[in-house]
């Protein structure tokens, strides 16, 4: 903080908070524009309790944005930072902008519910829809419209388990009910007895 920000003095300190700490840009663009000698001071500035919301929100209205001439890392004056000395925040303070909205998150939820129902008794009746809807959910998650890809996978897996259970029961049904009935029906005409017409 003792270092004068001469390359960044182009920012008009329009905030009433006074002197330009000016290093929060290094936090935001640490992978882009911060020069190496700024890194330690960035850490120091953050240790001083400077809020670092830079990637969205009302801070854009304070001070000069990247339009400062000759300033590639778009330093902005901080907003109300006080050198209180508390440790850097564990998560961004309020003002980082709207939370991302995933419009197709419900697909994976339905897939999970259908998968659970298929395992619990509805077998392939809800198992097949669970796999289909789960496939749609995974594609939506891959496209960025949803963030619950894990839940979609769970629904698909459960759907397959339920479908497999249903398939096993169908095979059992054929072997233990249909085939004996067919054999009895086939054998009846050949039996001597009261059934023979």
């Amino acid at each position, binding site marked *: 903080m003792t270092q004068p920000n001469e390359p960044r003095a182009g920012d008009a300190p329009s905030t009433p908070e006074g002197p330009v700490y000016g290093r929060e840009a290094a936090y935001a663009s640490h992978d882009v524009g911060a020069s190496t000698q700024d890194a330690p001071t960035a850490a120091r500035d953050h240790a001083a309790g400077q809020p670092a919301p830079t990637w969205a929100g009302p801070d854009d209205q304070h001070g000069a944005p990247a339009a400062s001439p000759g300033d590639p890392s778009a330093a902005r004056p901080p907003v109300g930072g006080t050198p209180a000395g508390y440790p850097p925040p564990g998560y961004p303070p309020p003002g980082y902008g709207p939370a991302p909205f995933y419009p197709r998150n*419900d697909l994976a939820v339905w897939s999970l*519910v259908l998968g*659970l129902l298929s395992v619990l*008794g*509805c077998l392939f009746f809800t198992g097949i829809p669970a796999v289909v809807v789960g496939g749609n959910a995974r594609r939506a998650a891959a496209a960025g419209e949803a963030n619950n890809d894990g839940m979609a996978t769970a629904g698909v897996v459960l759907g397959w388990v339920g479908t497999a259970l249903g398939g096993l029961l*169908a095979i059992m*049904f054929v072997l233990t*009910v249909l085939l004996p009935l067919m054999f009895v029906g086939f054998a009846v005409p050949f039996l001597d007895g009261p059934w023979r017409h």
Partner: protein
Amino acid sequence: MTSRLTPGVAAGTTAPHPAARRGAVLPFVVGAAAAAGAALLVVRSPYQPLSYGICPSVLFLGVYCPGCGGLRATHDMLTGDLVGAWSVNPLWTVAAPLLAATWVVWTWRRLRGGPPLTAPRWLPWTVLVVVVAFSVLRNVPVLAPYLSPGPLP
């Protein structure tokens, strides 16, 4: 086909968005399939023994699945016997009209080009809890007179 899909135009309102007309086919396909199933259920009564096969869950697992009695309940609802439908499968007796109402709203939205019909967030979990609770409770002997489907025809 176009006249069926653009009733709004015929009635003098603004034409629905072209995308709405395209998406209006699916509800009618679903409705036609449901109507065909309903017609089959009325004509071929599930009360006749083995008319639709044997229920595998009762046969192999010895428990009543939540859909047990669903065919009989649908047949009863279609022939006007609501009490009989309730006595066979109360969950389906409540759910089937709700599904029909949902289909109506869905078709209306698709035809008019309104916002897509989305389920409220609590709906899948509520469905899960209700169906699982129903399938457990209907196999409890104390509640059997109220929830179980009764002897298979």
